C-alpha cells in the first residue's frame, strides 16, 4: 500500500518538474515547481525523514517561491 503511494508520488514529482521545465509562462512554472517540492516533502516524510520533510516544505514551497516570483517580477514573465 505504501509502495503504491510512494510510486504515485515519485511519478507525480517527475511530472511536476517536467511541466515546470516545459511550460512557457514562468509564473505558472514557479507554482508547479512549488507543487513538486511539496510532493517531494511528502516523499521524505514517507521515507521516515520528517526533519528533511519540514525543511523541504518550508524552503521549497515557501521561501524559494517568493524569491522566484520576485525574480520574475523584476524580469520578463514569458520565456
Amino acid at each position: 500500500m505504501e509502495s503504491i503511494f510512494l510510486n504515485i508520488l515519485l511519478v507525480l514529482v517527475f511530472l511536476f518538474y517536467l511541466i515546470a521545465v516545459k511550460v512557457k509562462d514562468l509564473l505558472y512554472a514557479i507554482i508547479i515547481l512549488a507543487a513538486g517540492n511539496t510532493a517531494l516533502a511528502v516523499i521524505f516524510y514517507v521515507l521516515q525523514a520528517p526533519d528533511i520533510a519540514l525543511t523541504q516544505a518550508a524552503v521549497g514551497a515557501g521561501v524559494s517561491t517568493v524569491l522566484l516570483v520576485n525574480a520574475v517580477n523584476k524580469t520578463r514573465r514569458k520565456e
Partner: protein
Amino acid sequence: MQEKFALSLAVIVGLFLILALYSGAPSFGSFPDRPLLDTEDNTIPSIGFPILEGAPEKPPDGLGVPNVVTGVLWGYRAYDTMGEATVLFTSVVGVIMLGSHTGMLSLCKVVGMTVIVKTVASLLTPFLFLFGGYIVLYGHLTPGGGFPGGVIIAAAMTIILLAYGVRFACSRIGFIPCEMGEELGAIMIVVIGIAGFFTGTYFLQPWAFFGELGDLLSNVKIIILNFAVGLKVAGGMLLIIYTLLTSFGGE
C-alpha cells in the same frame, strides 16, 4: 531532436533511480515501526538499510536526545551547523552588498491585497509564529530544529509582507532587528562553543544536561544552539527577502 533526447534522458534517469531504490532497499511493508520517542527503553530500532548496519542503535548515554542523528549532529558535530551558519551569513552579506537598502524603502509603493487576504493573513500568522517557535525550541526532542523553524518564522513574516506590503512589514520587523537577530545568532553559536571550555569539554561539544530524556530541558546546549540558529536563519531569510524586494526599485 534535442528536446526528445533530453526527455528520453530524463525518463531513463528516473527509471534508473526508481529501480535503484527498489533493488537496494527493502520493501516498504517490511519496515519496522520506528517510534520517534521511545522513553521506556531508550532505543531506536535500526531502519534496515544495509548501509546502516554498523550504525548505533541508540544515542549515547545521558545525551538527553531521543534520536541518534539529532544527538550526533547537534551534540558532537555542531561544527557542521556552524559551517552552515557561516554559509548563510556570507550569502546574506553578499545580497546586502549587491543591493544596498539605504533610502530605498521610501520609494516603494504601499501595495496591499484585498481585505480577504489581509484577514486570512492576520488570522494565520500568529499560529505560524507559534509553530515556528515550537519547532525551534523542541528541536532536540521532535523533528525540526533551528533551520526549519527559522524558515517558518520568515515565511510567516513573508505572508504579512505579501498581504500588507513591504512598508507595513518593515514597520513591524524592520531591517535593524533582522540584522541584530542575524548577528546575535552568529555570536551565540561561538559563545556556546567557547562555553564548552569552561565546563570541561571541547569546542561545541555537549554540556549542560538538566533532567531526564523527554523533559524540555534535557539538553540545554542543543536548545540554545537551536535558538541561535533559528534566530540567525529567520533574520537572514527576512533580510534577503526585504533587500531583494526593496533595493532594485519598486515592488
